[in-house]
């Protein structure tokens, strides 16, 4: 595959050839090779499949693919088998010979490897019947299971780069922008700015040299939605970028990926090289006369570099510090040239819109938010993973139908969307539709795709403190409200969680929040108060319990809880004595309750966790 494609016809001929080659009745095995499956040992599973297929002389009779993320990370490594849509989960390399002998050769399903629905308790054979997938609309992530991310052939055979060919030969740049505008696509990086309008401003901005940029600096704790897309389907992002560059009039693009995403970096680099080799990138793309090059820049991991102006400063080789955007980056961005920056997910929506049309795209979603949104569903939930849902789905559907509800039968307490700068929404808002404007109205935001579910054992004051501590460390330190304000807010939260809060604290937090929102230089400072504001708004009783009663209702804040032995339940087994790192518990002889010396207790909770008889109390 090194022949350059010189026209649209060349591309279509190649696609035909690839599709013909793949059309066969061969059984297909797709193994998730996504980042989250790596620690579960998916590489070993892939290697086992490769060697076992050779041993059985099946190498040419079975199609084996190591694909990008399948989504249900909680149950990885995932193996998907066709025909039959058979969904195996938590597969180990030891299971591989049996899968080949039983399922591939004999066609039997292995019960042990099937997924059990956490709510109904029933085993499920087909992926399409797994509730996790049923309410999703995997418009963008769906192809992850079809393609090897490092094989451009896979992408092309599933229709890849046909949107680019359409954009280059069938419609004008103005029509592309019109189509994106009409689709209602809004920026997936968090703020939800209309993408078409942004492109239009950049196209119209005076200047010969313009840039397009992919923001892949996903830095929210717990979020990996962009990672799953970049490492799983890098060409979809690249195709969107090339189309955007053509529409805007840019000849140079940059992909800013954080260095902590090695798989995304490797797969994206491979994608660039392959596209270049095939003539889909570089000079005279597909013979259209359009020239466009892309470079990958690795980010050092500063959270603030996800902010567009800080990202551009970093791209220029300067310190990643934001600047005021009174003159927009579409007019004066990278090296003071018109620059159009979009998030990974925004770019990969572009080929879909060009191919299927704005009218079709508009059928998905709500009035103000069209299409789908990818979330990293994490926290105290049964099915953690990457989910892609149509806009307008409710939080309840995501958490209970897709996420399978709360872990260990605990009670739901809050869900945070939008990462550290998002807000914590309570149970009463579970029926809120996922929509840019609705989430903002509720005090949270869409963000770039983090969704953290919390249960009754989470202290909301402690959570607010956690996010503020994160933001305090990640503030660039340039402007006073963000640098000094977050620190003061965190100090007040420290005091409250340590039982040193006073009644004026909530008011002071609110006053500080107002100043950070109004006068911070960039969105990091302006959204930093969100976790505090929403927890005060929806969980004020918890703040009051900490301040007025010196009590942490969730039993999390160490200074406000103490452990004690419930003597009538304690048989003196001594497990807690061994577990205690501070030797604070004394063994008093068999069948006699142990004795806890509270002056030595550091409230680590080791005794509480280890006691099987609930003989240790916490209050």
């Amino acid at each position, binding site marked *: 595959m090194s022949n350059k494609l010189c026209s649209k016809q060349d591309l279509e001929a190649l696609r035909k050839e690839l599709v013909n080659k793949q059309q066969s009745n061969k059984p297909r095995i797709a193994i998730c090779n996504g980042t989250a499956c790596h620690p579960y040992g998916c590489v070993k599973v892939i290697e086992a499949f490769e060697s076992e297929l050779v041993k059985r002389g099946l190498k040419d009779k079975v199609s084996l693919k190591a694909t990008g993320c399948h989504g249900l990370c909680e149950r990885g490594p995932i193996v998907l088998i066709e025909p039959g849509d058979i969904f195996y989960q938590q597969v180990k390399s030891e299971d591989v010979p049996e899968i080949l002998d039983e399922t591939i050769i004999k066609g039997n399903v292995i019960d042990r490897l099937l997924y059990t629905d956490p709510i109904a308790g029933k085993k499920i054979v087909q992926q399409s019947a797994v509730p996790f997938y049923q309410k999703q609309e995997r418009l963008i992530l769906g192809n992850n299971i079809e393609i090897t991310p490092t094989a451009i052939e896979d992408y092309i055979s599933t229709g890849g780069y046909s949107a680019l060919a359409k954009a280059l030969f069938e419609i004008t740049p103005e029509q592309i922008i019109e189509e994106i505008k009409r689709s209602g696509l809004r920026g997936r990086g968090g703020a939800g700015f209309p993408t078409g309008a942004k492109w239009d401003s950049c196209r119209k901005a005076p200047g010969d040299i313009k840039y397009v940029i992919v923001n892949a600096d996903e830095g929210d704790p717990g979020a990996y939605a962009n990672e799953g897309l970049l490492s799983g389907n890098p060409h979809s992002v690249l195709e969107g970028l090339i189309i955007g560059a053509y529409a805007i009039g840019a000849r140079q693009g940059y992909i800013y990926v954080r260095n902590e995403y090695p798989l995304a970096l490797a797969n994206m680099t491979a994608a660039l090289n392959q596209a270049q080799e095939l003539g889909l990138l570089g000079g005279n793309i597909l013979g259209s006369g359009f020239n466009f090059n892309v470079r990958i820049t690795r980010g050092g991991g*500063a959270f*603030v570099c996800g902010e567009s102006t800080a990202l551009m400063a970093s791209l220029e080789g300067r*310190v990643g510090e934001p*600047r*005021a955007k*009174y*003159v927009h980056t579409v007019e004066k961005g990278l090296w003071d040239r018109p620059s159009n920056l979009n998030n990974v997910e925004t770019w990969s929506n572009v080929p879909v819109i060009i191919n299927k049309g704005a009218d079709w795209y508009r059928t998905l979603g709500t009035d103000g938010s069209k299409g789908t949104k990818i979330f990293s569903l994490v926290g105290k939930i049964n099915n953690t993973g990457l989910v892609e849902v149509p806009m307008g789905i409710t939080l309840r559907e995501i958490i209970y139908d897709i996420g399978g509800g709360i872990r260990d039968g605990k009670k739901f307490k809050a869900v945070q969307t939008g990462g550290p700068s998002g807000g914590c929404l309570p149970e009463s808002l579970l029926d809120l539709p996922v929509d840019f404007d609705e989430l903002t109205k509720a005090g949270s935001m869409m963000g770039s795709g983090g969704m953290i579910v919390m249960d009754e054992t989470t202290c909301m004051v402690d959570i607010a403190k956690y996010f503020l501590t994160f933001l*305090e*460390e*990640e*503030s*660039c*330190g*340039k*402007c*006073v*409200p963000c*640098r*000094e*304000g977050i*620190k*003061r807010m965190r*100090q*007040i939260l420290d*005091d409250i969680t340590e039982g040193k809060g006073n009644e*004026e604290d909530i008011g*002071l937090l609110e*006053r*500080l929040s*107002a*100043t950070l929102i*109004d*006068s*911070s*230089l960039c969105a990091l400072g302006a959204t930093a108060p969100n976790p505090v504001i929403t927890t005060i708004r929806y969980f004020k009783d918890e703040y009051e319990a900490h301040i007025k009663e010196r009590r942490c209702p969730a039993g999390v804040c160490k200074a406000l809880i103490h452990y004690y032995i419930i003597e009538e339940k304690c048989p003196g087994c001594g497990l807690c004595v061994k577990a205690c790192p501070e030797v604070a518990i004394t063994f008093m002889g068999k069948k006699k309750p142990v004795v806890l010396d509270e002056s030595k207790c550091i409230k680590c909770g080791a005794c509480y966790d280890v006691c099987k008889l609930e003989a240790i109390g916490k209050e």
Partner: protein
Amino acid sequence: MITFKIDGREFKAEKGQTILQVARENGIDIPTLCHHEAIEPYGACRLCIVEISRGGRSRIVTSCLYPVEEGLEVKTGSPRVISNRKMILELLLARCSKNSVIRELASHMGVEQPSFKSEYLEDNDCIVCGLCVRACEQVVGVSAISLVNRGITKEPASPFLESALACIGCGSCYYICPTGAIKMEDRGDIRIIHNWKVEFKLKKCRVCGDYWAPEKQLEYIRTKWGLPEDFFDICPTCK
């Protein structure tokens, strides 16, 4: 020309001028700490915030950076501006609780004590406005110092916190610092800038015998402008 309003009064300004420029040209007082007219605006201290609107919703912006727009209405002392500015001063006062410049500025705005617990108040002189670093880069052109670290630990510093080798001892950082955070002294024939761990030999005037400027600074200027070798042998007073 652009026509717009500050506090109800109409002004005409050139395109590209900032609100602060126009305000100051017309004697309207807007406080600043990180601003200096010889240096590119930076927007770090946020004291120069104003409330702007153009028809619709109003918002808070920094006047040092915001370019004037046709029909813009600017309020320099609205309740929203004042309450934000006061909180910013409280934050600065909490950091620099003993600094006389900050204390005076805060007091002028009616802020005597920050609302934070006294045990958390700090005694710092530097507000990280970056004027020293920016003057060194943009005016002097040597970039001997820079802002290092992130967030609350950010500070102006010499490379690797060692002696700043590129420093020419001109003292621009000292003169431009709004809060007196840079400690410089001329001791006999030596100039010391403590913050950057540097010492310079001062040049003696051939006529009056005064030590009047660091030799390294004069050499830097002489080379840059191709001046004769004896150009700085006599101090400006004696020339």
